C-alpha cells in the first residue's frame, strides 16, 4: 500500500460507506448472487436430513416428508430454488469464460461460453430427475 509523502497538501480521504452494496444495482445483484450460497448450504442440510431419515426407517422418512409438506417449508424451498437458479445462470455466464483458450483478440460472445454449461446443467437435471422419479 502506498505511503503518501508527508509534505503533500492535506489530501481528502473518503471512506467507503457501510451501505456500499445499496449504492448501485450491480452491487446489490452481486450480494444476492453470493447469498445464494446460504441456500446451497440449506438444501445440502435438508438432503442430509433426508438421507438420515432414510437410514432410520419408514416412520422417520414419513416424518421427514411431513415436514417437507409444511407450507412455509415449501415457500422456503421455492425461494431456495430461485436462488439456486440465479447461482447456476450467473455462474455459467462468468466462470466458463476462464476455460476458453485465449485465441481471440476480442471478447467471445456470452452465449458461446455459457451454452456448454447450460447443456451440462440440462443433462444433469434430466439424468438425476430420471433416477429420482424412476426410483
Amino acid at each position, binding site marked *: 500500500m502506498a505511503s503518501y509523502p508527508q509534505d503533500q497538501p492535506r489530501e481528502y480521504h473518503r471512506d*467507503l460507506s*457501510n451501505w456500499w*452494496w445499496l449504492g448501485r444495482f450491480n452491487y446489490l445483484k452481486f*450480494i444476492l448472487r*453470493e*447469498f445464494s*450460497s*446460504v441456500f*446451497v*448450504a440449506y*438444501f*445440502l*442440510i*435438508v*438432503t*442430509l436430513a*433426508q*438421507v*438420515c431419515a*432414510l*437410514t432410520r426407517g*419408514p416412520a422417520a*422418512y*414419513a416424518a421427514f*416428508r411431513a415436514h*417437507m*409438506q409444511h407450507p412455509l*417449508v*415449501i415457500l422456503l*424451498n*421455492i425461494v*431456495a*430454488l430461485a436462488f*439456486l*437458479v440465479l*447461482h*447456476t445462470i450467473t*455462474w*455459467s455466464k462468468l*466462470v466458463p469464460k476462464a476455460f476458453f483458450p485465449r485465441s481471440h483478440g476480442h471478447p467471445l460472445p456470452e452465449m458461446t461460453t455459457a451454452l456448454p454449461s447450460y447443456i*451440462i*446443467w440440462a443433462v*444433469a*437435471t434430466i439424468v*438425476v*430427475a430420471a*433416477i*429420482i*422419479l*424412476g*426410483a
Partner: protein
Amino acid sequence: MARRANEPAVWFLFGTGGFVAGYLLPVHILFYGILFPLGIFKDPGYQATLTVFEHPLARLYLVVLCFFGFFHAAHRLRLTLVDFLRVKHLENVLGLILYSGAAIGTLFAIYLASVV
C-alpha cells in the same frame, strides 16, 4: 509459498463446488422440496428411495455433493460476509468457523453413506 498459501486449496474446492452444486442441487430442490410435497409428482416412496441410495454410486454422489457443496458455500460466505459487514479483521475467525462447519457436514455425509 506465501502468506495466503492455503488460498488456492480452498479456491479450488469453491470452484468445483460451484459447478457441482449448481448443476445438481436445483433438481433436488425441485422434486424433494416442491413437486413431491405438493403432490404434483407422485413420491416414489420409502423403499424405492432407499434402494436408490443403497447403490454405491449414490452414496459416493452424496459425499461428493456435500464435500464440494459445503466448501463452496463456506468459502463464498466467508468472502461475502467480510465485504458485506466490513469485518476484514475477523476473516480468519470466520474462515475457521465456516470451513469447520463444511468439514463437519462432509463427515456426516460420509458417516451416512457408510451406515447403509
